[in-house]
């Protein structure tokens, strides 16, 4: 071991070139709360990494505010040892993260350091440096979103389909199941056979370390860690890391996107990201605007989310899907950050606490949720089956409100209400139980073609499980396999499915 170290040292000394150059330096004139003000560094660029020579060793910082004769910088390490008068040097490098395939299955900090105690990340595999701030692909480099990304959640896959390369916001109050939806989506990717498994990047911003550990454990136990990367900026980390985490996650996603692969990046959540940026901006003495957020808060999120794209075949055909999460206060979607992100994204999944407490889980409000990419990104079989689902549910909601006042209702209305209750019941799904889309089709087909009309609501949950099990055991090759493989429901398969359901129901 000691021989190896000495050999490495010898090699390093042999390769050392003694070329002293003039370096541009500055001096710390103010330091506090993770922000430093530096005199000098005249030619420093915005987003350039600078090094502060403090008593406790070198500390990196990020140049953000370029003023007339001073620079405001964000300390990326321990800021306690920095004092007024410390020398600051330029590195001529923009803030970057080392990316490569070795990141799969790892937990990293926004600066690319391993946080899972499994040693250094890049030992043998190739890696490259990617800037955290990068330009979004241009119009010519993009292609329309047309490939589905199955979440394994019936409500979403049937009514709010997400496409690869889309940006779909998940919005709702605290404790309404926002993170559960994205974790299910991650887990569902490896059961979605015959489709490219996307690389999933989960960016945890300002979350409790215990929650991050629990998420990691859940993903690991579900066998999804092999294609997942967790970027962690926990609650105990400085605001600088909260601010950088989404950009780091995006840079990792871009690496896979540009190499022709599909990637999904989950920002959990962007409200905390906005808080961190507000804190940094106020400390940098930038003028506060609405809700004390700085003027460029919209650009902060739009430049991040614009990097999600489906690339053209010429560019490799890769995609980066963004699933940002935003937490609302008392269901207020008209606050500053929610409205900003709603307007940037291609749709939103709105989770309601009332629905959650009524036992409708996932608590998706179908009326307020939308996917602006629409059915283009939906599997043809699902499109065929679930086309009228949203309409039936909307009619049910309307009637439900009406019968609160009316005592006598005719048979047709009663029937519609019953069907609405059936649909609501079959769309219920517990967390960590994503369902492959071909099984979703069977259940939705049975419900929408009146096969479940005579079943009591309380028995529906058990019955749908048995129905799927029955078809999986007896008709896997003739019904499920073609659905899985082609994603279409042809006449022949439809007839077989009808017969199988009828056979099961009569039993």
């Amino acid at each position, binding site marked *: 071991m000691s021989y190896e170290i000495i050999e490495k*040292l010898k090699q*390093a000394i042999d390769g050392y070139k003694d070329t002293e150059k003039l370096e541009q*330096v*500055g001096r710390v004139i103010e330091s506090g709360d993770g922000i430093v003000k530096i*005199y000098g560094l005249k030619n420093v660029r915005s987003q350039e990494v600078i090094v502060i020579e403090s008593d406790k060793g070198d500390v990196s910082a990020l140049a953000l505010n370029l003023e007339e004769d001073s620079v405001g910088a964000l300390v990326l390490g321990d800021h306690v040892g920095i004092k007024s008068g410390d020398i600051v040097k330029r590195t001529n490098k923009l803030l970057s993260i080392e990316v490569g395939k070795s990141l799969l299955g790892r937990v990293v900090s926004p600066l690319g350091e391993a946080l899972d105690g499994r040693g250094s990340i890049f030992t043998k595999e190739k890696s490259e440096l990617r800037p955290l701030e990068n330009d979004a692909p241009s119009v010519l480099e993009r292609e329309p979103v047309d490939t589905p990304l199955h979440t394994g959640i019936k409500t979403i896959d049937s009514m709010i389909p997400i496409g690869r390369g889309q940006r779909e916001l998940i919005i709702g109050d605290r404790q309404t199941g926002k993170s559960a939806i994205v974790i299910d989506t991650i887990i569902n990717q490896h059961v979605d056979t015959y489709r490219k498994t996307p690389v999933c990047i989960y960016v945890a911003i300002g979350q409790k370390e215990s929650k991050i550990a629990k998420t990691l454990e859940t993903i690991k136990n579900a066998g999804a860690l092999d294609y997942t990367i967790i970027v962690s900026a926990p609650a105990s980390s400085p605001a600088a890391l909260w601010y950088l985490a989404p950009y780091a996650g995006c840079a990792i996603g871009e690496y896979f996107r540009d190499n022709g692969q599909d990637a999904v990046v989950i920002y959990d959540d962007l409200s905390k990201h906005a808080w961190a940026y507000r804190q940094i901006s106020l400390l940098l003495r930038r003028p506060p605007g609405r809700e004390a957020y700085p003027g460029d808060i919209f650009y902060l999120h739009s430049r991040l989310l614009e990097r999600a794209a489906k690339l053209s075949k010429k560019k490799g055909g890769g995609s980066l899907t963004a699933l940002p999460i935003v937490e609302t206060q008392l269901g207020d979607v008209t606050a500053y950050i929610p409205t900003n992100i709603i307007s940037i994204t291609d749709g939103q999944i709105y989770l309601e606490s009332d629905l959650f407490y009524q036992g409708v889980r996932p608590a998706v409000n179908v009326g307020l949720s939308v996917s602006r990419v629409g059915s283009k990104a939906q599997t043809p079989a699902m499109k065929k089956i679930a086309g009228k689902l949203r309409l039936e549910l909307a009619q049910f909601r309307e009637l439900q409100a009406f019968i609160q006042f009316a005592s006598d209702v005719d048979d047709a209305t009663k029937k519609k209400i019953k069907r609405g209750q059936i649909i609501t019941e079959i769309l219920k799904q517990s967390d960590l139980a994503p369902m492959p889309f071909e099984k979703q089709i069977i259940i939705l087909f049975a419900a929408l073609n009146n096969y479940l009309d005579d079943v009591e609501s309380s028995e529906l949950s058990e019955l749908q499980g048995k129905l799927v099990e029955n078809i999986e055991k007896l008709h896997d090759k003739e019904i499920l396999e073609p659905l899985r493989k082609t994603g279409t429901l042809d006449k022949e398969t439809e007839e077989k499915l009808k017969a199988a359901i009828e056979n099961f129901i009569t039993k």
Partner: protein
Amino acid sequence: MNYSPKLYAIAFCQAVKEAKTADSINKCIKSLLVLVEKNRDQKKLRDIAFFAEKILNKESGHRKILVESARVLTKENEEMIDSFTKKTDQVVKKINPSLVAGVKIVIDDEVQIDGSFSKKIKRVLNTI
């Protein structure tokens, strides 16, 4: 009114420029201190001095050169440094044993050339 250290320094330098005698310069310093105390800005004094030095040096074309060495410089080395500097330059020599060997020169807090041994070791260790 909250004045920045730079604003104090600019005003002070303007006043000093107009002062012609040593007495009037002393009066300028005294007035500055009174004003700073009145505004309870004593914390800013260090920064005010820093900016005032920068402004005065810039106007007079003087440079502040800090020469840090691990040990006391030999006569030969001192002569060599003198040959690079102008008479008007303010040369500050400092002994810094943490450099181990070699010299580090900082000009006007803006440009530096670090020829110390400690930096070379650090650079070698970073490549391993």
